[in-house]
Structures are given as structure tokens and as C-alpha cells.
């Protein structure tokens, strides 16, 4: 049973660690976006320097999250990567098709409000979650 242990650590433990690390980055990114969005209005009264810093911090943390997610995906086994990739591809398609149609709704005066990017992000988040659940169910 020890034949293959030498060249790798415990897979499940590594995935768990990687997931937790990715979760921290995601929470940090959401917090940095909140700071960049609400800080100017609620904390520093639109002063230019902290506002720029807030945006730069959110960009930096965002890239950190991207790197962390990439490492997480690389750490998955091949089935895990396939499920993730399928869900991501489905999300990209839904995001593109629905995003463009949603944006069009205002131009053709079917809705009277400005389409919010947040709505698209919520849709993409839900689509990705549904894709991951469907993938895990398929290969259960």
C-alpha cells in the first residue's frame, strides 16, 4: 500500500487546505471590494488618495484570489478538474448570452432601469454552483 506514497502527500488533506486558502482569498476579495465601494462614501469622504488605494488593493487581492483559485484547480484530480471546467464553461456561456440580452433590454426599452453588473454576477454565481452540483451528481 505504500508504493505510491513517496511521491505525493495526502490528496484529501491537500485539497482541504487548498479550499480553505481559496476561501480566505475570496472573503478577502469581497471585503476589499466592499472597502473600495463604500469606503469613499462612508469613511474618507471621496478623498482621492485613499480611493485610489482602495481600488488598487481590491485589484491586488483580486489577482491573489485568481492565483489561489488556479492553484486550487491544479490541485484537484482529473475528474475534479473536469467537473470544475464543465461548470466554468457553462457559466461563461450563460453569462455571455444572458448578459448581452440583459444589457439589450434597456436599449430596446423593455426595461426602464439600467442593467446592473451585480445581477449578472449573481446569475453567474448561481449557474456555477448549479453546474458544480450537476457535475458531482453525474459522477457520484
Amino acid at each position: 500500500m505504500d508504493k505510491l506514497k513517496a511521491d505525493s502527500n495526502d490528496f484529501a488533506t491537500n485539497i482541504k487546505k487548498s479550499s480553505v486558502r481559496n476561501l480566505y482569498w475570496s472573503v478577502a476579495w469581497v471585503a476589499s471590494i466592499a472597502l473600495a465601494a463604500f469606503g469613499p462614501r462612508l469613511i474618507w469622504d471621496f478623498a482621492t488618495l485613499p480611493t485610489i488605494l482602495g481600488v488598487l488593493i481590491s485589484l491586488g487581492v483580486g489577482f491573489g484570489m485568481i492565483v489561489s483559485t488556479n492553484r486550487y484547480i491544479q490541485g484537484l484530480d482529473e475528474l475534479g478538474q473536469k467537473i470544475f471546467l464543465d461548470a466554468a464553461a457553462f457559466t461563461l456561456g450563460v453569462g455571455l448570452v444572458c448578459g448581452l440580452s440583459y444589457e439589450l433590454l434597456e436599449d430596446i426599452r423593455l426595461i426602464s432601469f439600467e442593467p446592473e453588473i451585480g445581477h449578472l454576477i449573481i446569475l453567474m454565481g448561481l449557474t456555477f454552483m448549479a453546474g458544480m452540483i450537476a457535475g458531482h451528481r453525474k459522477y457520484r
Partner: protein
Amino acid sequence: MKNRFKVLRAEQDWTQAQLAHELQVSRQTVNAIETGKFDPSLKLAFRAARLFELGIEDIFQDEAAS
């Protein structure tokens, strides 16, 4: 593609979790391979062959050829 994963695992008296640990994949992956829902990559197939001390063709068979 057919495979003898389940039989070989049973011969070694391993659980899916033990085999998954040895192959450094998830238990879900072992189960998906055993049930024929997922075909492993060549890299993983070689890993399994090394683990079971068999040739790849002794573990995996092309259904179209048989």
C-alpha cells in the same frame, strides 16, 4: 472503455478510499472509473498499472475492440 478496477481492488481487499489514497485522487474518481462513468487519463492509467503491477491493457480494455 471497460476496466477491471473493481475486481483488482477487491483482490487487494482495498476500499475505494484506500485505492483513491494510493492513486492520489478522490474516492469519487475511483467510483466513477469503476462504474464506467469516467475514463482516466493515460497518466492515471499508468499510475494504476504501476500500483497493481500490471500492464495498462490488463486493466483497461477498448469496448469497441472486444
